[in-house]
């Protein structure tokens, strides 16, 4: 469903993330915090990574050089919450036949509505980031462990797709609280994702990309006239040239790390690349 925005208001919120890969230590706290916050199911064997559900996943990348010139960097990957070339043209939203995943023009968050999803998995095929996971089985919590489930997020059943929601339930709670307190806006500290909150290195910064007062917009410096491409020379987005217009910005001083964010020809310079021109 397309939501139209009125023109006399300031721009809607556009929640996004900036992840400093030079600070990220690859500890995995974000993955665990996310799983605990969102009632993510677990199995005895989680080593088949195609079947292991991890809304937030930390990838390990290397520069491919030999000892002792080898380097390692970790890259946390939540759902990238693509806006596409027109707001709402996320790869997954475009293909969902059940409107089980939708783009919120108010927040820029790509939702996933489990009760609508009938498990066709088109969205998983469409997602360039492997951010979506399918529940092949009903989740099973060992006896007693269901006590740790949070009522804020419904446990998913077999046959549906799930993914990172930028902890949307936290936004809802913060919005309700702001409304009850007669405030118009949700403050930066009032809505933070579980991963950003848990990151011990302070590598993940979350907030409204459209709000210049939020740290994330100061770091990511998105150019609103160029598909929110970052103006920060340290920053890049994953597979930016697909035109997915994602809301997760990565930062690194290292050239090889920035280059790992997309597929480049051997002699290509990442900083010179631009997203594809929009077609009429």
């Amino acid at each position, binding site marked *: 469903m397309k939501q139209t925005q009125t023109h006399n208001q300031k721009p809607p919120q556009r929640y996004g993330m900036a992840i400093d890969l*030079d*600070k990220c*230590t*690859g*500890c*995995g*706290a974000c*993955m*665990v*915090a996310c*799983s*605990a916050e969102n009632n*993510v199911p*677990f199995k*005895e*064997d*989680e*080593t*088949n*990574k195609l079947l*292991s559900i*991890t809304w937030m996943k*930390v990838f*390990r990348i*290397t520069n*491919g*050089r*030999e*000892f*002792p010139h*080898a*380097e*390692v*960097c970790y890259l946390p990957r939540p759902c990238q919450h693509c806006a596409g070339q027109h707001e709402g043209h996320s790869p997954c939203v475009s293909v969902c036949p059940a409107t089980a995943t939708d783009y919120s023009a108010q927040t820029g968050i790509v939702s996933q509505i489990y*009760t609508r999803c*009938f*498990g066709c998995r088109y969205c998983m095929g469409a997602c360039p980031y492997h951010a979506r996971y399918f529940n092949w089985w*009903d989740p*099973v*919590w060992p006896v*007693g*462990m*269901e*006590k*740790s*489930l*949070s*009522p804020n997020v*419904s*446990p998913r*059943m*077999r*046959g549906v797709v799930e993914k990172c929601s930028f902890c949307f339930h936290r936004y809802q709670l913060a919005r309700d609280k702001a409304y009850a307190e007669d405030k118009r806006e949700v403050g930066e500290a009032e809505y933070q994702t579980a991963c950003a*909150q*848990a*990151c*011990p*290195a*302070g*590598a993940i910064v979350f907030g409204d990309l459209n709000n210049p007062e939020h740290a994330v917009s100061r770091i990511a410096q998105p150019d609103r006239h160029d598909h929110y491409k970052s103006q920060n020379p340290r920053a890049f987005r994953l597979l930016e040239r697909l035109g997915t217009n994602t809301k997760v910005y990565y930062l690194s001083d290292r050239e090889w790390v920035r280059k790992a964010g997309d597929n480049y020809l051997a002699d290509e310079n990442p900083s010179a690349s631009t997203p594809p021109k929009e077609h009429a």
Partner: protein
Amino acid sequence: MKLSRRCFLSLSIGGTVGTALTPLPWKLTDDMSIWSQNWPWTPVPPDGAYTYINSTCTLCPGHCGIRVRKVDDRAVKIEGQEGTPLNQGGGLCPLGLSGLQLLYGPRRIQGPLKRDGERGKGQWKPISWQQAIDEVSRKLADIRSQGKPQSLACLTDSDTGTVPQLFKRFLNAYGSPNFFRMPSVEDAYESVLSLTQGVDGFAGLDLYNADFILSFGSALLDGYGAPPRVMQAISRLKEQNGTLVQVEHRLSNTAAKANVWLAAKPGTEADLALSMAYVIIAQQKYDTDFIGTHTEGFEAFVRMVQERFDPQKVAAYCGVEADVIVRTALAFATAQKPLAVYGKGKGQTAGSLREALAVHALNALVGNINRVGGVQAIPAYDYLQWPAVMTDETAAAGLQTQRLDRARSPEFPHAQAIVHRLFETVNASPGEVQALFVAEANPCYSLPGSANVQEAFDKIPYVVSFSSYMDETAMQADLILPNHVYLERYEDVPVRSGTTRPMIGLCQPVVAPQLNTRHVGDSVILIAKALKGAVAESFPWADYESCLQEALGDQWDAISDQGFWAAAESAPASLDNGFGTPSGKFTLMDETIGAVYQVGEPSAAGDASEYPLLLMPYDSIRLTSRYVGGTPFMLKTVADTVLKGQDGFVDLNPETAAHIGLGEGQAVRLSTPVGEARVRVHLDDGVMPGIVSIPRGLGHTAQGPFLAGKGVNVNRLIAPVEDPASGLDAALGIRAKLTKA
């Protein structure tokens, strides 16, 4: 009626088209999926009132502040407690974040258990608490009446705070000097502080205020000290354009994030540190004021360094080029607040005393002892003001006996406890230990040479475990008196890791006890009372809580409200009276220290011709090898190049692998002088050629289906190597070979 071909075809085609056009099949498929998705076993978590409770995590020595979200009486999420003095950011490590999986998990012991069948077979008979306490006290009274109270030993995770001190007090009243705590890097730091500064206390490393950190293999970003605090400090270092230099043979996460990675060969780190000292002295970049006014033995130190640690010489065998040594040493010495850090990996072994002294000497040379951004000696906590222990004749006689590990004897004057020696003694002369208490420790899994530890357990007639979980050590017990887990109990936890500011965290009950468990402090008090006489009189408290409240005294109200007590921010101890040495100065070199520098590094066990490779364990923050095992959520974070199905991996340099003819994922037999295991190979350019790198924290044989049987426990493949200087285990690794399976 005759069914013509035409009629049949039109009926079937018409029927197919008709069915396809009606919504019926789609509706049925839809209904069926909705029906099956609503099968009642997908839980609907009940909603309720939200509350937050502040407490302290006790899963590692970091003791971070936590904030637990509750819905009615259920704990649903653990988060870091923001804004506490030691954890400004409120981040938390993967283990701390998944603590609820320990609280509600299937590994917990439901109530007191008595062994019913052979040891280690896991056959148990549930008994009542009364029976359990009676049983232990009868056994202990027996041992005591034979006049051998010293044959009761106790092993716990730490020796600070009321719970370990209650155990120690119990042993004192009972008549045994054999109280042990698990080994850690603190053992080495304590010895170093005592030798150089004459201080009884712990080393506060001011990582947060340093601008140049030179780490000798410490897993600063993989779980060293208090992980969130250390990580915050390193992030801050980056923001302030500070420098992190990591000396390590492997491209660990810390090395990967360091500005400079010095891949020194294992065992040459002390020499590398001393060659840096050589450069600092030769180029006169040391702190002349501190060296001149506050140290003694400088000339002797200079002589020793000049004779033996010329960077040219050291570079030839340590794997770091001489000009890199010179450059690093000068950068270190000219930084504003340089800090050299000792402690391998997460700091779960003491390591080499020689290396610890060399690293501390670097700190002294640049004069950052007891300074902001340096190493501050923090006096031991002394808030426990208990009445003196009553000792009867039996106890007095028992306390006169030599400790089983000879710690604190003239042989090893600075060691508090040498755990591997306890088990070696048991293996050599089984009668010496008649009973063993184990609390908050899992020696059968966590100690190097765990096969020997296991063997020793077989020889101890009576083992009592206070574990909350069915771990490897609890499996070897005769009786289990399960403790509450940390989210169900009160406990004071004095912080000793990664802080320069004394602080006591309070672990407090977040939820009511879920099972038929009892606070370990209460168990000790009850056992003491059942023993009657002087032992009972030494424990005047009705229960643990009153004992704790009395111990914390005036601070109780503030601490239970806030979740912690922190000493006021204060300047480091002054240099003029901060040293307890006879001269009142920092001792760079004297006879004892000189002897330590003289002995050389303990080498890895095994014959290099038979075992051409070196097996080195590494620490990852995604795994844990301490008392509490990992959680299901943590296992999600473990890469499939570390664990795949049940198979554990070792990391090899591609060159080494090619030499043996091994490829990615191939199964091999890994043998060392003490054991062997089947592993698979992962090729990694971050591993030094000739080294086999293996993670700590896998290969459990107990601890339930999420952990048991996965990967290899490295402690089964290595053995302790005693540091001749300290008596402590300083094993780096062990010689190894790989053969195609």
